[in-house]
């Protein structure tokens, strides 16, 4: 297999709080291959966004650190690379679309300014060429009347339009990896479908890898080739999308699926996983999902489970479920 595009190895992110450093993401490891689409799913607070931000080191300055781990990209470790090198990668090789298109665009700059900024920075285009390119990009993200819209300010656009503009900015330099952090969460359901469809088409057209973050399993199922399930700052399951939805192995993944409303079967009470996700600095012995797990055994409260392969590329972090195979 060819070397992966991006490789996360034991990535750990800590934030400074009043009580010292607290670990938000604890030893995340996975690869993203060229043209691959990896879905990252988990509840709020599971560390999905923090993981995504660490690829571009976009956490708040001064209040975060990476005590361990690497993000390998193009022969460099992005966690330790000099800011200068990172700036050349941001927006050019790896671009990001954020959750809330209302607040992610600069309200006092026109759409044209905001798109052409990236083009002029990374591709050295002059103003006129960048503007033409910006209009092409608006066309590409299916914004009608692009030549006129390009001079609008963000507040004149609807939420869906703004997210399309965000995507246009992100794909402007044809990145090799697009990170989409809950790109549809802030939008209406019908618009969500359109944006996902757009992302899918662009992914094929531009041949880029996508890391899609969502708390919506439906979105992930439709979009991703591979799924990473995160819980409390750790990867608990990592599997090809078919395998995951056919036979989820981690009790948490099972819980997530059970809590999805089914179209058939009439009105039933929706399942909810009992309890809540623990705070990052909450002391839990053994498995962090243990206290909420219906299948927890004695070993779960003692030993921290390892992320082990059970078959092929299916990895699970659950002691009872990996016991049979002993880890491959």
């Amino acid at each position, binding site marked *: 297999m060819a070397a992966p595009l991006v490789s996360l190895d034991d990535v750990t992110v800590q934030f400074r709080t009043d009580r010292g450093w607290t670990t938000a993401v604890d030893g995340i490891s996975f690869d993203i291959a060229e043209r691959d689409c990896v879905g990252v799913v988990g509840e709020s607070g599971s560390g999905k966004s923090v993981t995504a931000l660490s690829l*571009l080191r*976009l956490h708040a300055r*001064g209040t975060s650190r990476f005590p361990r781990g690497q993000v390998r990209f193009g022969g460099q470790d992005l966690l330790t690379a000099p800011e200068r090198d990172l*700036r*050349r*990668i*941001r*927006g*050019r090789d790896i*671009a*990001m679309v*954020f959750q*809330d298109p209302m*607040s*992610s*665009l*600069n*309200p*006092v*700059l026109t759409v044209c300014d905001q798109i052409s*900024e*990236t083009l002029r*920075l*990374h591709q050295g285009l002059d103003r006129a060429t960048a503007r033409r390119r910006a209009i092409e990009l608006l066309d590409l993200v299916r914004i009608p009347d692009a030549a006129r819209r390009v001079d609008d*300010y963000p*507040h004149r656009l609807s939420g869906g339009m703004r997210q399309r503009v*965000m995507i246009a*900015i992100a794909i402007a330099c044809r990145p090799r990896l697009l990170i989409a952090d809950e790109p549809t969460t802030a939008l209406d359901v019908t618009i969500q479908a359109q944006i996902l469809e757009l992302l899918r088409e662009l992914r094929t057209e531009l041949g880029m890898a996508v890391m899609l973050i969502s708390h919506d399993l439906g979105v992930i199922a439709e979009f991703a080739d591979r799924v990473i399930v995160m819980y409390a700052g750790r990867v608990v399951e990592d599997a090809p999308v078919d395998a995951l939805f056919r036979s989820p192995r981690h009790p948490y993944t099972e819980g997530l699926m059970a809590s999805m409303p089914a179209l058939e079967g009439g009105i039933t009470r929706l399942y909810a996983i009992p309890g809540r996700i623990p705070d990052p600095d909450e002391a839990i012995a053994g498995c962090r999902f243990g206290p909420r797990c219906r299948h927890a055994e004695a070993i779960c409260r003692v030993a921290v489970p390892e992320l082990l392969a059970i078959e092929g590329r299916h990895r699970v972090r659950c002691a009872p479920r990996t016991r049979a195979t002993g880890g491959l």
Partner: protein
Amino acid sequence: MLRLITIKLLQAAPVILVVSILAFLLMSLLPGDPAVVIAGDQASPEAIAAVRHSLGLDRPFLERLGIWLLRLAQGEFGSSLMLNQSVLSAMGERLPVTLSLAGLSLAITLPVGILIGSIAAYYRQTWVDSLVMTVALVGVSIPGFWIAILAVILFSVVLGWFPSSGYVPFAQDPVLWLRSLVLPASMLSLFQIGFLARMTRSAMLDVLSQDFIRTARSKGLSEWVTVGKHGFRNALVLVITAMGILVSTALGGSVVIEQVFALPGVGRLVVQGIMARDYPLVQGVMLIYGFAFVAINLAVDVLYTLADPRVRYD
């Protein structure tokens, strides 16, 4: 834009009327009889009556107000008693001094205040931030006249870098003009820099925590562009508000500074007018300053629309 200015001018009209009436009331509200004060302690009752008549004080209150407003409408701002010249021409002579002082002071304040305020916001909760904010607090807290006198002692008397007083018109010698104004303008700026730095800092703190700043970083922009372009352009609305207040305080603060540095500006004129109980002069200056403040606010409103595309008044 023209429409906006028209609307704002119409809205300013009542304010101007109220300012005019307040200036008029100055004459009536002051303790004692202005005619007695103007005519002097030793004046005979006939002399006092003559002054009263010449000032129109023997007429009914509303009639006096009507005459006052009518004259203002005709551009007649009255005449100074002590200078024997119209208030307008007296101000016209001294305005260049005050405007030079205020202008130079703003030219110092704006870049310095905005820069250190932004730096403090960028390095929030570090020693840099604490240092800048402490200096700003000191600048805001120190009485202008006191630090101005100390500055005269140090820079003029001891070091001899700048003249301690006096003013050289720009047309006469630009270099000497600048030299005569650097010290007073800097002293006037101390308070203003502190004020502007604090305003800029809080505006920038708010902006720098916004999502679009993260977007700017994710594009690969340098910190300079991120903070200077994406950040500052959004903080500009608040900074413009601060600037409006700064221009006003520059005019007000020049009263004290002109006194300390013996600059023949409007501030000094009004102090002399008050000392000499030259009521028409004080009234006139008060009015014109009132109008100036209205104009400043109008300018601020117009600048808002240029700074933030979301601001629309119609």
